C-alpha cells in the first residue's frame, strides 16, 4: 500500500485521468460488508492483487483494502516508471553510440524529456487496466478504499465499515525512508516519487545512497543529459552484489559519466537561490556540490504504523516490519503477512510469490514454506545484474564447498553480434556435483536470462542435464549452455574418458581386424 495520497484529481495530463479511472476511480463507492470474509487483504500492491485474485479463484469471499492507489509502488511509485524511462534513456545511449553498431547517428542528440515522461504515463495507464477497480469487482473481489485499522484479532475497520474475517493478509509494503540529514527538510526537497510527476529533467542530480534503484535512476538520468552524482556511505559500490558484478556496472556508470562517491556521507544541505548545496564528507574531509534535485535512496520503511497492529496481536518492528515465520504467519495465527512489509528482499515478484504462498497457507490446509522458494531478482542498470540462489560467500559460510563456472559475454556469439559484450554468466555449483546453488548474470538482458536458471534450480535440474538442453543459436542465453558444457568437458576429462578412450581403442582394433579379414 503506497503512502496516503490526496484524492486523485482531474487536473493532470490525459494519461493521469485514465490511470486514476483505473487505480482509484473518483466516484468509487465501497461495497457494504455482509457476514465474515474468508480473507481480508490489506494493501492492493502487487502482493495484495495476487492474493485477492488467488483467493477469489479458490472460491473464497475476499475483501481488498487500499488506502491510495491500486498497483502500489510497482505501478505508481517507481518500478514501472523507472523501467519505462530506462528504455527511453537506453534508446538515447544507442543513438549516441550509433557508430559502434555500424550506423550513422545524428550530429547532435536532442533529448525530449517531456516525451519520455508522456510515454511513461501512457505505459502506466495501460498497465493499470489489468487490475483496475472495475475488473477487480468483476473478479468477485470486494474492493474498499480507505485506511485499514484493526479493531481486534478478527476485525478490521475501513472508511467507517467493520469487516469481520476468518483470515487476513497484510501486504502494505514500504515507503522510502527519509534521510536524517541536517537541512534536508528545510531545503524543500520534494519526495522521491514526485520526480515522476515532473516534466523537466534536472540538470544536476544528487542521489544519496547507491542502492539498485538509485543506480538505475542515476544511469537513466545521466543518459537524459543530467550531471548525476551518487554519494553513498558504504565503501563498496552495490555492496550486496558480487564484487565482479558491481565492478562491471561500476565501469558502465563511469563510462556514461555518473560521478560516484563511495565512503561518503552527506552532512548538510542548504539552499541558495534555486540550487541546493550539499556538503559531502569523505575520510574527515568535506567538499560541496551544487545540484538542482536530490533523491534519497537510503532504504525503505515498512508501512505498519497506522494499522493498529497491537489490537490484532500482531508483532512488528518499525525497521524490519511485521514478524513472520517460514509459513508467513504473524504472531496472530489468523493473520499472515507477505511482501516488502515483512521480507528482506523488497521486489514486486517476491511480494507476488510470497502473497500467493501466504494465501494458500491461510485458506487451505497444509503449510508451504517460504524458504522452499528460490527467487531471482534483478537490478535494471545497463548491463543488468540478475541473481538467484546462494552467493559464493553464503555457500562458504555454510561450509558448502562451491565452485563457479564463468562464461564471459564476450565469448557468446549473439552478444558480440549485438554489441552487448559486457558482463558474464556465473553459475555456482556444489564441488564434485552438478547441483546449481546459485547464479549471477550480468548482461544487457540478464533479467530475461536468469529465468532459465530459475527454472533449473526450482526444478532440481543440474548442470549435466542443462548441458543436454539444445539452445537456439545465436542467443545470449547460450551462455548458460556454454557453462554447462564446461562442466561436461571437465567430467569427461576426469574419469569417464578412460572408459570412452578404451571403447574407442576397442572399436579401432575391431575395425582393423575386420579390414584384415577382408583382404584377399
Amino acid at each position: 500500500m503506497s503512502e496516503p495520497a490526496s484524492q486523485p484529481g482531474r487536473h493532470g495530463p490525459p494519461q493521469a485521468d485514465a490511470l486514476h479511472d483505473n487505480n482509484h476511480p473518483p466516484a468509487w463507492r465501497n461495497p457494504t460488508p455482509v457476514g465474515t470474509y474468508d480473507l481480508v487483504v490489506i494493501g492492493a500492491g502487487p502482493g495484495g492483487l495476487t492474493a485477492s485474485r488467488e483467493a477469489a479463484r479458490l472460491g473464497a469471499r475476499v475483501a481488498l483494502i487500499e488506502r491510495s492507489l491500486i498497483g502500489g509502488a510497482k505501478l505508481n511509485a517507481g518500478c514501472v516508471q523507472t523501467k519505462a524511462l530506462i528504455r527511453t534513456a537506453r534508446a538515447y545511449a544507442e543513438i549516441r553510440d550509433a557508430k559502434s553498431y555500424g550506423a550513422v547517428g545524428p550530429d547532435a542528440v536532442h533529448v525530449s524529456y517531456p516525451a519520455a515522461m508522456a510515454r511513461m504515463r501512457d505505459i502506466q495507464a495501460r498497465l493499470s487496466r489489468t487490475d483496475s477497480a472495475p475488473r477487480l469487482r468483476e473478479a468477485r473481489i470486494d474492493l474498499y478504499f480507505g485506511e485499514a485499522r484493526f479493531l481486534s484479532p478478527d476485525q478490521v475497520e475501513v472508511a467507517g465499515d467493520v469487516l469481520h474475517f476468518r483470515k487476513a493478509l497484510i501486504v502494505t509494503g514500504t515507503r522510502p525512508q527519509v534521510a536524517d540529514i541536517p537541512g534536508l527538510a528545510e531545503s524543500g526537497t520534494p519526495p522521491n516519487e514526485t520526480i515522476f510527476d515532473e516534466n523537466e529533467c534536472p540538470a544536476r542530480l544528487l542521489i544519496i545512497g547507491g542502492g539498485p534503484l538509485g543506480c538505475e535512476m542515476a544511469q537513466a538520468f545521466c543518459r537524459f543529459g543530467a550531471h548525476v552524482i551518487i554519494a553513498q556511505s558504504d565503501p563498496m559500490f552495490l555492496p550486496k552484489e558480487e564484487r565482479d558484478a558491481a565492478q562491471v556496472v561500476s565501469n558502465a556508470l563511469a563510462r556514461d559519466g555518473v560521478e560516484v562517491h563511495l565512503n561518503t556521507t552527506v552532512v548538510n544541505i542548504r539552499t541558495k537561490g534555486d540550487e541546493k548545496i550539499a556538503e559531502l564528507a569523505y575520510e574527515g574531509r568535506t567538499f560541496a556540490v551544487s545540484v538542482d534535485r536530490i533523491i534519497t535512496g537510503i532504504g525503505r520503511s515498512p508501512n505498519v504504523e497506522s494499522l493498529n497492529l497491537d489490537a490484532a496481536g500482531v508483532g512488528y518492528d518499525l525497521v524490519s516490519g511485521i514478524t513472520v515465520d517460514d509459513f508467513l504467519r504473524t504472531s496472530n495465527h489468523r493473520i499472515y503477512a507477505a511482501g516488502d512489509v515483512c521480507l528482506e528482499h523488497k521486489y514486486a515478484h517476491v511480494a507476488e510469490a510470497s502473497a500467493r504462498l501466504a494465501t494458500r497457507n491461510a485458506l487451505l490446509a497444509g503449510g508451504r514454506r517460504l524458504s522452499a522458494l528460490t527467487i531471482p531478482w534483478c537490478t535494471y542498470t545497463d548491463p543488468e545484474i540478475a541473481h538467484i540462489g546462494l552467493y559464493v560467500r553464503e555457500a562458504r559460510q555454510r561450509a558448502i564447498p562451491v565452485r563457479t563456472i564463468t562464461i564471459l559475454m564476450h565469448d557468446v556469439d549473439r552478444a558480440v553480434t549485438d554489441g552487448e559484450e559486457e558482463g558474464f554468466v556465473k553459475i555456482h555449483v556444489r564441488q564434485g556435483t552438478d547441483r546449481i546453488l546459485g547464479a549471477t548474470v550480468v548482461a544487457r538482458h540478464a533479467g530475461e536470462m536468469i529465468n532459465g536458471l530459475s527454472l533449473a534450480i526450482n526444478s532440481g535440474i543440474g548442470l549435466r542435464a542443462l548441458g543436454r538442453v539444445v539452445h537456439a543459436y545465436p542467443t545470449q542465453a547460450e551462455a548458460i549452455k556454454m557453462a554447462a558444457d564446461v562442466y561436461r568437458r571437465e567430467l569427461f576429462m576426469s574419469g569417464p574418458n578412460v572408459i570412452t578412450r578404451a571403447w574407442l581403442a576397442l572399436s579401432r582394433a575391431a575395425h582393423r581386424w575386420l579390414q584384415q579379414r577382408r583382404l584377399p
Partner: protein
Amino acid sequence: MPDEGAQSDDALLDRLQRAAFGYCLTAVNPENGLVADTSRPGSPCSIAVTGFALTCYLVGVKRGWMQRDAAVARTLTLLRFLLSSEQGEQPDVTGYQGFYYHFLDMQTGRRTWQSELSFVDTALLFAGVLSACAFFDRDSQDERVIRDSGDWLYRRVNWQWARGAATTIRQGWKPEGGFLNSGWNGYDEAIILYVLALGSPTYPLKADSFTEWTSTYQWENIYGHNFLYAGPLFIHQFSHAWIDFAGIQDRFMREVKCDYFENTRRAIHVQREYARRNPGGFSGYGKDFWGITASDGPGGIPLVIGGRARNFAGYAARGMPFGPDDGTINPCGMLACVAFAADFVLPAMRQFAANYPEALCSDRLPSGLNPTARSKDNRAWMSDGYFGLDQGIVVLMIENYRSGLIWQLMRRCPPIQVGLRRAGFTGGWLG
C-alpha cells in the same frame, strides 16, 4: 638497449633486474633509509617500496652489485629511523601501534598526503625487515644489531589491534576517523599480512581470522582454467615475492587440490587468454602483451578513438576479465611473472622490447604503457618515470626465478614458518 634477440635469457634478465635494482640506489634518502614511491620530483616515501628495497639490497649483495657492508649500512640506517621515529595517535607522526603510515615525507619521515596507517604496506615493509634479519646472519656487531632491531620492531606491531571490532584485519586506520570502513574481501595480496600477523610472538592474530578472510575466496573457472580468482596480476605476485607457496597448502587449497604457486600460473594463463581475446579491442593486446594490474595510466578526458568511446584512468588497480581495463598494461607486472611462467614471459619480453624500444631505453621498465592512447608523437602512451613497487617486484621475482634466494631465505624465517602453520599450511617444504 643491445639487441635482446642475441642475448641469452639469463643475460636479458640480468640486465633488466640490474636496471630495476638501480631504482633503490637512486630513490633512497641516505640520511634515513626511506625509499621514494616513484622517481618523480616531490614523491613521498612508500613504506611498501622501502620494504621491497630492503630485500633488493640482499639481491644486490648476492649479484655483486653492492658490497655487503654497504647493504648493512643502508639497512641499519633505515632500522634506526624506524626505531627512533615517533609513534602515536597524533596525525603527523610516523606510525602507531608499531604500524607505519602508507606515505611518509622523505626528509622528516612523518606522515604525508593524509595517508592511512596501512596494514598491508606495513606487512610488506616487515617482509623486507625480516628478510634482512635472515640474510645478515654473521656474528658481527652491525649484523647483530640488524637482527635485534628487526626482531624488536616486529614484536612491537600490534596485529590484534588492527582488527578493530571485526574478526579480520581492517584495511587501515586514520587518526581523523579511526579504522577505515572496509576490510579485505576475496583473494588479494593480504596473505602475507595474515602470515606475519599469525606468526607474531607478541600480538598474534587468532587463526579464525584467516579462516574468516578465506571464506570470501572464489574458486572459479574462467576461459577453462580453474583458479582462485583475483582480477589484478599484482595480487597473484606480491606475497609470493617472499613466500615460496609451491607445494604447501592451506585448507582451501587442499580442498581444491591446488597451491598458491600453481594458482598464480593459472592466473597468468587467464591474463594471456584475455589479452588474446581482447574484448575491449585495445591496441597491442595479444599473447605477448599483457600485465593488467596496478599501474599508472593516461588519465585525462574521455576520447573517441576508432569510433569507440574510451575512458582512461590514471594510477589504478586494473583487472581482468571484469575490469577496469582501459588498454593499459604494466610491463613490470608481466616481467615479474617470470618465476611462475618463464615460457610465456621470456618470449613476451623479447617481443615487447622489439615493439616498444622506447620503453626500454634505460633497461628499466615504466609503470604503464597504453598503445590505444597515443602520445603527441603518435607513440604508445607511456608512464613518466618509475614506480618503486614495480621495480621492487621485478628484482625479487627475477631473483626467485634465477636462484630462489629469497624463497630459500624466508623458509628459515621463524615468523613466516609459524604464521604459515597457524594459517593451516602443511606439506612441501613446511614438512
